[in-house]
């Protein structure tokens, strides 16, 4: 088991009225094997709050959070986690190399091994040319990439990214998606990332966790989630040089339709299952109030 969240409840107090505002309600999800998992939900759904509870930045009222089968706050566990918050700004007056060395040392690395790893990562994130530049001179895309590098410096087994692609231009997003893909294929790292950019999630993830209004409504393979949105079957047929497409909703109806078309002398050109995209499936999920 890589990650397991059980019955996580979190509430905040209103600063003036001190009224309790619950934002997470018995959140449950798990990641069992190495994969890229997308944590999806609209604004205010509870993605960042859940992640902050996992990292230890927020306390919570009840629940059990386990990473690699241990309490998520244990130092041994933290050594195995890499984390990149949403839209981070780092120390302005450190160079890229100093910055990575700092985070490497905090994770217990030192000496030649750390120097080699810094070189590898600067290469991976395409910032070798900026090795001695201060972070204050970095663009937003460069900051996001150096942020990725700090999260990866100690070769974590679990990488947690909070909206890593938001606020980047298309080129920046493409670069970061490629870094995430490379990390997943080349290192023994499970990647758990929150996002509302469905195209990128679709491209990257094998599994999904869907959250809405502080409740998790789906946790499983992306393909299963999208398959739930299948609508039926499309039959393309022709008769007397005229082509037509018809739709049927169920498999039994499809058989009947095929028999009928054949009896009428139609030629069946092809049959395909109507599929919807992750984007459409997610819109349906949001519209249904998450009742899946």
């Amino acid at each position, binding site marked *: 088991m890589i990650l397991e969240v059980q019955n996580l409840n979190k509430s905040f107090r209103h600063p003036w009225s001190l009224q309790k505002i619950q934002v997470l309600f018995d959140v449950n999800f798990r990641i069992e094997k190495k994969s890229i998992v997308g944590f999806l939900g609209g604004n205010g759904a509870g993605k960042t709050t859940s992640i902050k509870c996992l*990292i230890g930045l927020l306390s919570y009222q009840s629940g059990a959070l386990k990473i690699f089968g241990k309490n998520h706050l244990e130092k041994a566990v933290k050594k195995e986690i890499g984390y990149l*918050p949403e*839209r981070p700004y780092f120390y*302005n*007056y450190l160079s890229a190399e100093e910055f990575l060395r700092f985070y490497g040392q*905090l994770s*217990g690395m030192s000496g030649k091994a750390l120097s080699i790893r810094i070189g590898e990562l600067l290469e991976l994130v395409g910032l070798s040319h900026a090795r001695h530049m201060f972070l204050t001179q970095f663009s937003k895309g460069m900051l996001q990439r150096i942020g990725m590098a700090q999260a990866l410096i100690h070769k974590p087994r679990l990488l947690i990214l909070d909206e890593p692609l938001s606020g980047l231009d298309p080129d920046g997003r493409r670069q970061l998606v490629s870094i995430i893909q490379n990390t997943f294929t080349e290192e023994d790292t499970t990647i758990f990332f929150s996002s509302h950019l469905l195209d990128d999630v679709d491209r990257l993830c094998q599994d999904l966790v869907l959250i809405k209004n502080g409740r998790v409504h789906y946790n499983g393979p992306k393909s299963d989630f999208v398959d739930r949105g299948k609508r039926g079957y499309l039959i393309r047929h022709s008769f007397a040089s005229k082509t037509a497409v018809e739709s049927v909703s169920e498999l039994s109806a499809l058989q009947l339709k095929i028999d009928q078309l054949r009896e009428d002398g139609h030629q069946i050109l092809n049959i395909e299952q109507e599929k919807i995209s992750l984007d459409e499936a997610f819109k349906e999920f949001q519209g249904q109030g998450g009742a899946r």
Partner: protein
Amino acid sequence: MSSPIFVVAKNTFIEMIRDRVLYFVVVFSILFMGLCFALGQLSYNEIFRLSVSLGLSGIHFCFMGLAIFLGCSVFFREIERKTIYTLLARPLSRGQYLLGKYLGLLSVLLTLLFGFVLCFTLVEYLLAMPILLTSYYAFVGFFFEAAILLSVTFFFASFSKPFLSITGSLAFFLIGHWVASLEAFIEKSTSVSFYLIGQVIIHTFPNLEALNWRPFAISQSPVPAYELSFAFATAALWALFFFMLSLIIFRRKDFE
């Protein structure tokens, strides 16, 4: 492998010492110190005593201002820029983080104090004043006081915004210097409520005037060893007290 406390302290030192904002404050402080010395020169007699007194007062005021500025701004910046998020995600306890920050800032203050000592000596030399070892005891007192003040700023910054932290730390600084006078006032006062409030303040706040060794510089006499040791112990205990208070709050803090 370095200790995480040392790693955080070293990073804090590098980050602060390269910050241009710090240099604006330092340049202002040096100008202010120069002005204080210049005012001392306007005197017809007692030029040495007045120049040293005003010069050291200027340094004292600026140095404590720097301690408050550094202590309050460092937390605000770390939380505002979310750098603290990535740090606390590492195998680093909140106590180690806080101690690392404190030691890092203390080393920045020590470096700045060394700069002030150099400026002070240079001005004394340029004004053809005698350079006496007794003048430098005051700087030791400044450092002890800054160590207390820094942990006080940590305490306020652990639960409030920069404006409140600066105001609270400044109030602490002023009351701390006022404690000795207050003691004299309440002895003469006939009001019971004034007496009670005064007693509470006297026993709650450290007497920062006890760390003021400018009179020794002016009278050109050394600070007795027992006073130095007592001041060191007092400063360490007060700094530890406020540091522990900050730690208790900081450990429970949610980063929303």
